[in-house]
């Protein structure tokens, strides 16, 4: 069997792998079929990697190359497996961010190697050079940017926007270096500019360096609660980088897979930005919640008095309600209170109360995070309602229990002229009665007072999320 005879079949196998990716993503349209979809996607990956191995076997590559492939795969695979098995669900955003980083990093390395192998001294053509350099740039930005995002989410790096004098200037300068470097190398490939191969390598090095710095200075000024958008965006990047690498080495499965991931990241980025009523550009420029824009706009309105409520009173309201809607927010995840929440919900259901969970698109630290946390706590997914689905239900809800959610329930969003204006919110204030579990009257991420708390219908149960839920459970049991 020669390489030429085998290649068409391997190409078809790549195509089959790509088809599995598309079908796998298609099955993600329902929780009932999603698990099989993911397995189909994994099978597609196995087909693509396996057929590539067969191609290399026929081609007859060196023992050293095999050693690198196999040992590299085993080490990376073992690290990936161990991390995936042990990571707590609350840390999922950090993990996805790290995987974005290594994926982008791998794409950048493949592109760098391709550049070094072909060189620019007449060997490479214009399009290859362009895609290789784009792969290097996007991959490097993803690598450093995702690591910073992950550090912020993990709390290793301060979550608040970090802005130092000249940081924006540095970001712009680095972007320009990468841009001009790319032009330089492409013009070298066209023959317009003649560069010594060594100089060309140095230019590439400068591009890599500036792209890495760009990634860091791009993510540092972005605040913690904007992370769902940033992670989505950084999810689209490595897909694009993989597609660029696919153009460079002329491989269809890389192009298709990369395009799919790019589309996925793009859609999620848009959805998250819409859910916060902010443009992507606005988020990338950063600084929200840093203080300067936030405090000014509160005005009057929020001056009303706050009514504290005890666990026993709250329990009576909950136990004798017909419909209770629970609104979990990031505070619930931080307090690891998803299990306590499920327990209270089940207890109420046993007493014949209808229980629903209202999930705002940006609850948690990444798209859909809260759903995963509640699924982990064994809450059946039909009880988890999306914002548009649940908002009409608030009108007939007897009690709404808000646990660790803040800005997404603030009725001020319906009025213009404040930091949350126009943001889609859960219509919690439409319910007959509202109970908010909260440690203090502290402000949410947007830095303004929540008018829901001063609503006469609202009772504040001052406690940590987990503690408050446990108190309520005990009190309901005692009834």
């Amino acid at each position, binding site marked *: 069997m020669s390489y030429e005879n085998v290649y068409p079949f391997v190409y078809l196998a790549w195509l089959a792998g790509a088809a599995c990716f598309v079908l796998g*993503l*298609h099955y*993600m*349209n329902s*929780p009932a079929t*999603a*698990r099989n*979809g993911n397995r189909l996607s994994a099978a597609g990956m196995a087909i693509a*990697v396996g057929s*590539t191995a067969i191609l290399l076997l026929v081609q007859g*590559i060196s023992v050293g190359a095999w050693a*690198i*492939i196999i*040992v*590299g*795969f085993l080490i*990376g695979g073992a*690290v*990936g497996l161990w991390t*995936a098995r042990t990571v707590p669900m609350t840390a999922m955003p950090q*993990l*996805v961010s790290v*995987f974005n980083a*290594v*994926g982008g990093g*791998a*794409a950048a*390395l*493949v592109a760098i*190697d391709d550049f070094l*192998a072909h060189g620019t001294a007449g060997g490479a053509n214009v*399009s290859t050079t362009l895609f290789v350099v784009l792969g290097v740039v996007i991959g490097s930005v993803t690598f450093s940017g995702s690591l910073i995002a992950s550090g912020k989410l993990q709390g290793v790096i301060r979550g608040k926007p970090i802005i130092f004098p000249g940081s924006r200037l540095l970001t712009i300068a680095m972007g320009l270096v990468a841009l001009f470097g790319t032009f330089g190398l492409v013009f070298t490939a066209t023959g317009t500019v003649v560069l010594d191969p060594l100089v060309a390598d140095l230019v590439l090095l400068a591009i890599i360096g500036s792209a890495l710095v760009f990634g860091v200075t791009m993510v540092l000024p972005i605040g913690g609660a904007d992370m769902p958008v940033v992670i989505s965006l950084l*999810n689209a990047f*490595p897909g694009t980088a*993989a*597609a660029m*690498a696919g153009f460079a*080495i*002329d*491989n269809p*499965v890389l*192009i298709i*897979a*990369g*395009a*799919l*991931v790019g589309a*996925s*990241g793009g*859609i*999620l980025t848009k959805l998250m930005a819409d859910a916060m009523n902010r443009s992507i550009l606005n988020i990338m420029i950063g600084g929200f919640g840093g203080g300067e824009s936030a405090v000014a706009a509160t005005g009057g309105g929020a001056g009303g008095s706050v009514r504290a409520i005890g666990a026993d009173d709250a329990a009576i309201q909950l136990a004798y309600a017909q419909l209770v809607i629970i609104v979990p927010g990031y505070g619930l995840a931080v307090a690891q209170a998803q*299990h*306590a929440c499920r327990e209270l919900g089940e207890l109420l259901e046993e007493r014949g109360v209808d229980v629903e969970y209202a999930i705002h698109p940006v609850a948690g630290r990444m*798209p859909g*995070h809260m759903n995963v946390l509640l699924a982990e706590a064994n809450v*059946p*997914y039909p009880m*988890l309602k*999306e914002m548009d689905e649940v908002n009409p239900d608030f009108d007939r809800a007897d009690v709404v229990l808000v646990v660790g959610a803040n800005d997404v329930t603030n009725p001020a969003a319906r009025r213009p002229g404040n930091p949350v204006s126009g943001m889609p919110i859960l219509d919690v204030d439409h319910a007959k009665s509202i109970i908010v579990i909260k440690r203090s009257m502290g402000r949410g991420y947007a830095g303004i007072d929540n008018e829901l708390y001063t609503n006469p219908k609202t009772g504040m149960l001052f406690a940590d999320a*987990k503690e408050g839920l446990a108190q309520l459970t005990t009190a309901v049991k005692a009834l």
Partner: protein
Amino acid sequence: MSELTALLFPITIFVLAILCGFEVISKVPATLHTPLMSGANSIHGIVLVGGMFIAASADEPIAYLLAFVAMVFGAANVVGGYVVTDRMLQMFRKKPVAPKVGPDGASGAAKA
């Protein structure tokens, strides 16, 4: 065939794949957005195939090093991504499963 003409076919694939991705992914419910993201995340681990090719053509120390690191990164991305997505998706159930409670849930119950 000119250089640009040769590029037309891969660009066609790329554009159609993006449209296909938009079509498929816009139907994924918000409940599954985290698994979707980590699943898509493992798909970009396909760059592993690129890592295998550069390992195959490596002929100097720097190329070996690049290929090795790319393999490690790509494999961590692929294996970790699929495993963690599967772990999340198996938690999505239609009806509650009574006996099985995680360690954290048990401690929560003890407190209550």
